[in-house]
């Protein structure tokens, strides 16, 4: 019983459903939530919408009361859903950021791995991914977490941004209160992040991440020596761009940066995913 409800943006202009969408929206609003499948179709309140009821993805980026761009909302990598599963019988949907496989996929020449990194990569490739911390249900470490196939929700206050991640129901804090980065911190999965504004761009600096982190499925390393800078820009209501700059002399011969794009997700909800609830893949890998 596949839910066949089409979003208005996906309806043909002459579709009778398009003209009925406002009425359908009202019907949904008037329907008790208890009869719905959680809140997977529940309309997100307070967002810009077109007359059709669809979100106005081209609307200006929202701002907080103090005039800063507001990144609050749910996000997923801005990759088009492929149509091969729309018409076929396949179960597998290829809705995936290319950077999930290789975070440097768009870099001419690829990532500038050091010899140490190349040795790490050789072992990781040979093991077919079984050593990937993500396979073992470890936390979704940023910046890799931006590319994973789960949703995120950003909560933004003047002094603190929190990124919630569906995978393992994890969180990340970005302090916006002017504090300095810690010196010689105890390494963690996400490290320690502070943010400051450069115009409408939120610049997040991170240090103190663990020495054995992966940036993608193919095993690109990032280590404790890394200083990571993420520059967040909300282009409009629908799109956020993130420039990820990595300066990690242990893993890379020179600093590099890539830009990824995130798409806002509305009329849906966060669905927690506790990986160790029923993980069965690790033992299937060749020993």
């Amino acid at each position, binding site marked *: 019983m*596949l839910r066949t409800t089409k979003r208005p*943006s996906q309806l043909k202009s002459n579709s009778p459903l398009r003209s009925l969408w406002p009425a359908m929206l009202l019907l949904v609003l008037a329907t008790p939530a208890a009869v719905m499948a959680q809140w997977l179709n529940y309309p997100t309140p307070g967002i810009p919408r077109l007359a059709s009821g669809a979100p106005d993805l081209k609307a200006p980026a929202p701002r907080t009361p103090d005039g800063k761009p507001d990144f609050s909302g749910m996000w997923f990598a801005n990759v088009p859903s492929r149509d091969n599963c729309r018409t076929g019988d396949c179960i597998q949907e290829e809705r995936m950021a290319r950077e999930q496989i290789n975070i440097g996929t768009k870099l001419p020449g690829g990532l500038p791995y050091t010899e140490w990194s190349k040795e790490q990569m050789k072992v990781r490739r040979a093991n077919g991914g079984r050593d990937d911390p993500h396979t073992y249900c470890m936390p979704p470490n940023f910046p890799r977490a931006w590319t994973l196939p789960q949703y995120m929700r950003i909560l933004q206050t003047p002094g603190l941004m929190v990124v919630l991640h569906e995978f393992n129901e994890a969180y990340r804090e970005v302090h916006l209160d002017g504090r300095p980065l810690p010196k010689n911190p105890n390494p963690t999965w996400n490290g320690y992040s502070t943010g400051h504004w450069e115009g409408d761009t939120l610049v997040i600096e991170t240090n103190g991440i663990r020495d054995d982190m992966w940036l993608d499925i193919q095993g690109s390393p990032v280590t404790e020596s890394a200083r990571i800078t993420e520059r967040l820009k909300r282009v409009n209501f629908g799109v956020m761009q993130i420039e990820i700059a990595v300066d990690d002399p242990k893993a890379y011969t020179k600093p590099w940066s890539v830009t990824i794009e995130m798409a806002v997700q509305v009329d849906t909800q966060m669905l927690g995913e506790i990986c160790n*609830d029923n993980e*069965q893949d690790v033992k299937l890998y060749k020993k």
Partner: protein
Amino acid sequence: MTTTNRTFHAVKYRLIPLSAFVVLCLALVPAAWAHHSQSEYDSRKKVEVEGTVSKVEWKSPHAWIHVTVTNDKGEKVNWRFELPSPNTLMRRGWTRDSLKIGDRIKVTGSPARNFPDIGIATTIKDSNGKALFTGVTEIYEPEAESGGAK
């Protein structure tokens, strides 16, 4: 490439030749819903079974279904197939009740490299031939504003 007429209870393997390069790529490329590389499955091989659902595991990180299949020797074999995450399936409109114990289904997929009777499902059809768990997540798709390397 054989497709036998044993449409009932048959277990069939089909080999599809692919270049080593493609095999490597497939081993490294996960499905959108995967939390792992999926190299534990041999995508060069195809498995197709028909049987009765004996268990549904609707849990993270991936749903699993168990299918009781009678093999060519007349023995009952319990196959287990990995599906996308329940969250991915729910976003397509499927629920934990979409498949029930006792339902007859036909599953195609790829087998695990190192373990028998385990596979990853690529299609599942009910006894009427209706495809289950298919579809895409209905989302609003903003136009890409830029991207690419800096």
